[in-house]
């Protein structure tokens, strides 16, 4: 049987056509191994994240906010970390919230499961849990996001009218009977709308509610460029983007902003903030952001390396061709 020998390929050609299985294997290893190694990478939070944290911390303790949870597990790498960090802050400031979705029918159940997970962490840390119905309620899913946001701007009671959640007696009750919404009459009684989103819901909220209340967006890396113009125009009070945004939040929860430690050293400084913003000392502030950030760094390094290798190969081939001609 005749064997076709592989043609002799130059180094440039080899560098340009590495088997994709190699690339996949390298990426798999590089993105997985750092998840099991706890390394704290130095971090300088972005201005948009600092504003997000600053405005979240300014909300008076005991207030009510809306938490639009527009993500499912397809983007949990980013959105789950954002949701966890935000809810931890809300829990610690005793801010009550309504969680609902205008993007995905699965999202309210994902949020409910995540609240159970976060309450489990509270129990492990011997801290009080955040009780459904008393501290937060589930507003469910609204298939028509635009219309709902429009209705919310007119009357929150009418927009959320008829929505029910499980009360402590185990029965479904109107969410406006819960301690969370009992004193809420209009949208002005709600201090902020926080949107954890992997969809284009940010635009909907800016259009319909931007002039009525403070908006804070926690978006995926892909949606970041779409949300940033609203931040730079001042229509949104803060934006946190992707895993870097989660790590920014966790860093600020750990170190505050412009806040000197016992030795007088300031870990996170920003001329964007007048004075300082507090932190949560002695609490488990680090979570998914610090866990995933090394993997993100390593994966991006592989991307850069792959592009560099491909381009070196291209130049080598070009050089060889020009030499032979």
């Amino acid at each position, binding site marked *: 049987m005749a064997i076709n020998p592989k043609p002799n390929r130059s180094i440039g050609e080899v560098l340009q056509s590495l088997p994709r299985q190699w690339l996949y294997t390298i*990426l798999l290893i590089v993105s997985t191994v750092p998840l099991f190694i706890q390394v704290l990478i130095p971090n*300088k939070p972005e201005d948009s994240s600092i504003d997000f944290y600053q405005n979240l911390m300014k909300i008076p303790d005991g207030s009510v906010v809306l938490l639009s949870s527009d993500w499912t597990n397809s983007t949990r790498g980013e959105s789950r970390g954002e949701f966890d960090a935000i809810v931890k802050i809300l829990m610690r400031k005793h801010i009550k919230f309504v969680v609902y979705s205008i993007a995905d029918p699965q999202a309210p159940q994902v949020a409910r499961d995540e609240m159970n997970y976060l309450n489990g962490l509270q129990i492990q840390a011997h801290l009080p849990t955040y009780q*459904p119905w008393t501290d937060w309620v589930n507003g469910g899913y609204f298939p*028509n996001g635009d*219309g709902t946001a429009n209705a919310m701007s007119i009357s929150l009671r009418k927009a959320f009218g008829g929505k029910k959640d499980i009360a402590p007696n185990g029965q479904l009750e109107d969410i406006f009977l819960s301690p969370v919404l009992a004193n809420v009459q209009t949208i002005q009684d709600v201090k902020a709308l926080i949107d954890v989103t992997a969809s284009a819901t940010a635009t909907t909220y800016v259009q319909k509610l931007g002039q009525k209340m403070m908006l804070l967006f926690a978006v995926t890396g892909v949606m970041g460029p779409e949300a940033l113009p609203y931040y730079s125009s001042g229509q949104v009070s803060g934006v946190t983007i992707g895993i870097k945004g989660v790590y920014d939040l966790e860093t600020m929860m750990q170190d505050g902003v412009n806040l000197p430690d016992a030795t007088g050293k300031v870990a996170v400084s920003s001329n964007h903030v007048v004075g300082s913003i507090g932190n949560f000392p002695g609490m488990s502030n680090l979570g998914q952001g610090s866990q995933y950030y090394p993997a*993100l760094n390593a994966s991006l390094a592989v991307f850069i390396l*792959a592009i560099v290798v*491909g381009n070196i190969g291209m130049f080598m081939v070009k050089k060889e061709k020009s030499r032979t001609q």
Partner: protein
Amino acid sequence: MIWHNFWTGPNNSFLLWLRIILAFVIPSALFYSIRSVSPFTRKIIVAAAFFFTGGVYVFYFLWPQPIHRQPLDIPRNLSESIGFMLSDSVPVAADVANIVGAFLLGLGVYSVFSIHVDKIRKGHRDSPFSIALIISVFLMLFFGYLNYYQTLKAPPGVNMTLPQNWHFAQYARDFLFNGVLQQMDAAMFSLIAFYILSAAYRAFRIRSIEATVLLATALILVLKVMGVVADPWSQLVHGLHFGNNQFGDNFTFLNISNFLQNSFQSSSIRAVDFGVGIGALAMALRLWLSIDKQTGT
């Protein structure tokens, strides 16, 4: 007649019941009668329906609206009455749209179901996958509704959404939803990273000036996210200064990428958004006024 209260009425009042009955009878009669009319009349009816439903939002946007309206406020003249009625109409329109949206979900399930049942019936070579899909749908439906039923029928004081109160149905639902569906969802999405790497390696080549600019910009934005590179670099350039002027700070990856994003990226996206917005407005007008070719045909 109170104009601003058109959509609502006192609980259990004759007026409210009359409206509820009319709201059921009139659309039902309209729905059945539309089937027996000529195509031209049908086209008129559909166009009128489009105009009135879309008109709620158009007139709400154009007509002066009550500011900081309180629940007991009463309009003082016709203009305010119309403003009150329109602002009362929008939540109702949102409710109708949400209900229609929910029906669309049902329609999607019906569509998937009919396609795969048909495949099974015809013995298509992919029918095992269709069988797996149908079984999955039924399993999810069964345990989903069993969980819902048990939640409603739970003993007083027992919240079945909390894991400590779960029984078999709740664990089964959790396994199907979180253990299977959500994990597959995440796995599918994570595959994108591998395709992006492969595509970037093969396609991202410095073949022209435009490609070089694009690559350099992307590199800066990526390096900004990489703390292992961005932080040492920041410390390095921080040392560059003229007197008290921290000149070097302009060259941190964070500041360069902020400049790129605020100056070029945001303005470009705004331009795209304006274009999309004007296009959407044109399309909305065509639909609203039924001058689109597909309407009623």
